[in-house]
């Protein structure tokens, strides 16, 4: 069961494409709202980092990818996972530590991976998957496929040296990798301007990598930039570094509710009311003549899929105790 419509990249109807984008974004939004509720009602173990507000980034980029392209993801990874084609039911099962989860419950929110759709895994080490994504791109090149790898990371990952090590090699070896830096302004509870010197785009350019800044709330702008980057990668012209300006509407994680000491309510309100990626797309679609009912219909489909997913997961079994020492080695 896939909660996403089939990508309509070949469709000649542009509107269809953006309805698909709308559906994906609505699914992520609904999914994350449910995660928050599960956490608050103590039905979810551990923590989760919500992607709400950033949906256009994952969706815009993943719409430019094929199923056999790779992504790597972060602690804030549900959006990437869904956008790349994962099903809500098995995702919820994973988040609850249940056996039908994508990782048999062993990974959880921060390690969800979906091999079948090319998702090589969320990662709880900041910048921890930059090597994996770059290596997947190298592998694609060595195997002479034209697969592309997208490495999602938050702007906080710009603090980690390994990113520069692998960008250098990606540039030298012209690897088909896209570094997607999601700048949501905060490293946890610290504003990125306190942690990040100089210009973000220059961090890629310094390695001879094509780099650009994109409005991460505008799914169409993200998609366009991604299409350019994917084309560059498939052509064999090497990596791209994208800085996607965005905002997380919720806390750093589900438990981060008192946020006033690090960011103002005005700021939050402004982003939520002026820069909601779903609202922005809605506005554009309505301008194109899409009627409200169509969008409501898509929204409720998304909602239902998510609801069914939660029910599935709540009812699912935990892994057997014997699994505890399985899968240490292949």
């Amino acid at each position, binding site marked *: 069961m896939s909660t996403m419509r089939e990508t309509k990249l070949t469709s000649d109807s542009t509107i269809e494409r953006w309805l698909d984008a709308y559906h994906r974004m609505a699914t992520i939004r609904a999914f994350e709202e449910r995660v928050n509720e599960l956490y608050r009602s103590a039905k979810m*173990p*551990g*923590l989760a980092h919500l992607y709400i507000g950033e949906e256009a980034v994952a969706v815009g980029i993943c719409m430019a990818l094929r199923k056999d392209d790779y992504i790597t993801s972060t602690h804030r990874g549900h959006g990437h996972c869904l956008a790349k084609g994962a099903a809500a039911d098995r995702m919820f099962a994973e988040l609850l*530590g*249940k056996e039908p989860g994508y*990782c*048999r*419950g*062993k*990974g*959880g*929110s*921060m*390690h969800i991976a979906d091999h079948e759709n090319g998702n090589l895994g969320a*990662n*709880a*080490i*900041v*910048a*921890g998957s930059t090597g994996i994504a770059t290596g997947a791109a190298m592998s694609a090149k060595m195997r002479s496929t034209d697969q592309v790898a997208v490495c999602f990371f938050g702007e*906080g*990952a*710009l*603090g*980690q*040296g390994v990113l520069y090590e692998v960008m250098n090699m990606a540039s030298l070896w012209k690897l088909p990798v896209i570094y997607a830096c999601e700048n949501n302004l905060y*490293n*946890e*509870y*610290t504003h990125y301007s*306190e*942690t*990040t010197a100089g210009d973000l785009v220059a961090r890629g350019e310094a390695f001879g990598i094509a780099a650009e800044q994109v409005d991460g709330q505008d799914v169409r702008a993200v998609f366009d930039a991604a299409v350019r980057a994917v084309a560059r990668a498939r052509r064999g012209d090497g990596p791209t570094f994208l800085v996607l300006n965005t905002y997380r509407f919720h806390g750093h994680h589900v438990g981060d509710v008192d946020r006033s*000491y*690090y960011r103002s309510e005005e700021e939050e309100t402004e982003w939520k009311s002026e820069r909601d990626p779903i609202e922005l797309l809605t506005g554009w679609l309505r301008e194109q003549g899409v009627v409200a009912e169509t969008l409501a219909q898509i929204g409720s489909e998304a909602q239902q899929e998510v609801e069914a997913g939660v029910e599935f997961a709540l009812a699912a079994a*935990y*892994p057997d*105790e014997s*699994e*505890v*020492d399985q899968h*240490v080695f292949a």
Partner: protein
Amino acid sequence: MSSPSAVAAQPGTRELTLSQAVNEALAEEMRRDASVFIVGEDVAEAGTPFKVLSGLVEEFGPERVIDSPISEAGISGIGLGAAMTGMRPVVDIMFGDFMTLVMDQLVNQAAKIHYMSGGRLKAPLTIRTTLGATRRSAAQHSQSLHALVAHVPGVKVVLPATPYDAKGLFKAAIREDNPVVVFEDKMMFAVKGPVPEEEYVLPLGVADVKREGEDVTLVATSSMVYVALDAAEQLAADGVSVEIVDPRTLVPLDRETIVASARKTGRAIVIDEGHRSYGVGAELAALIAEDAFYDLDAPVRRMCAMDVPIPFSPVLEDLTVPTADTVAAEARRLVGKE
């Protein structure tokens, strides 16, 4: 986590959480010595995700409680350079799992600089970080990697179990002219215990007998002390008298106290939350087996985290670490009271 009698407050004594004790140790040392400062991710206004450092930036300002980029290697290296030139930095590594990123700065630089310079350079650097599982934080936020650090000559390793020990040892760590890594179990921050109002510093390298007994010795580190204390209560009910030795520091290690207890009881279990193989448990077990050889009535047992990455699923995660029940069962087997 229970707060067993052995570490409960005497009437009239002040009680603090372990988190408060660490905070107080830092505050006192920062007041005392202007060269002490803290650097780490979200240490200032946020006071770390566990809020252990709350309030320090208010007292000491952002020049001495410094929010850093997410650069574990970088801040450790910078801390080392500052330590070599007159400062006493405390580098905060949010999760012990991230010590992997610090290994080069710690192993190849900090640990060796005094020796390599023939004793001429010093590195009074303290790193504070965490260990411990069962928070449903999964494989990359649940490790107890203190064995990796303890293996490296030139670094001292502190594993406090009680608020009292945490405060006294932390102050000693900061005053040390050597690199010290303090591992705090993140499940233990809320544990309460007596902490005197008066200032005190505990020496590194002195084990603490957390409970005296005759039949079996439990050598337990960090939060495993509480597991051992709970197990001891169970065992007491069965007529088994348990002695609990908490090494408190792995480097230097108080071999004498550990060995003496094992020689006295003739039976020992070592309990540590690191992985079993090639871990801290192995060193403690080998030490006892070697030095108490002629007094042991049974082989030394090791109870540690399983040799598996820590799984997310609660039903699995809880199987990976020693518990009071599993320890008590093992102790019963050891003394033949199954």
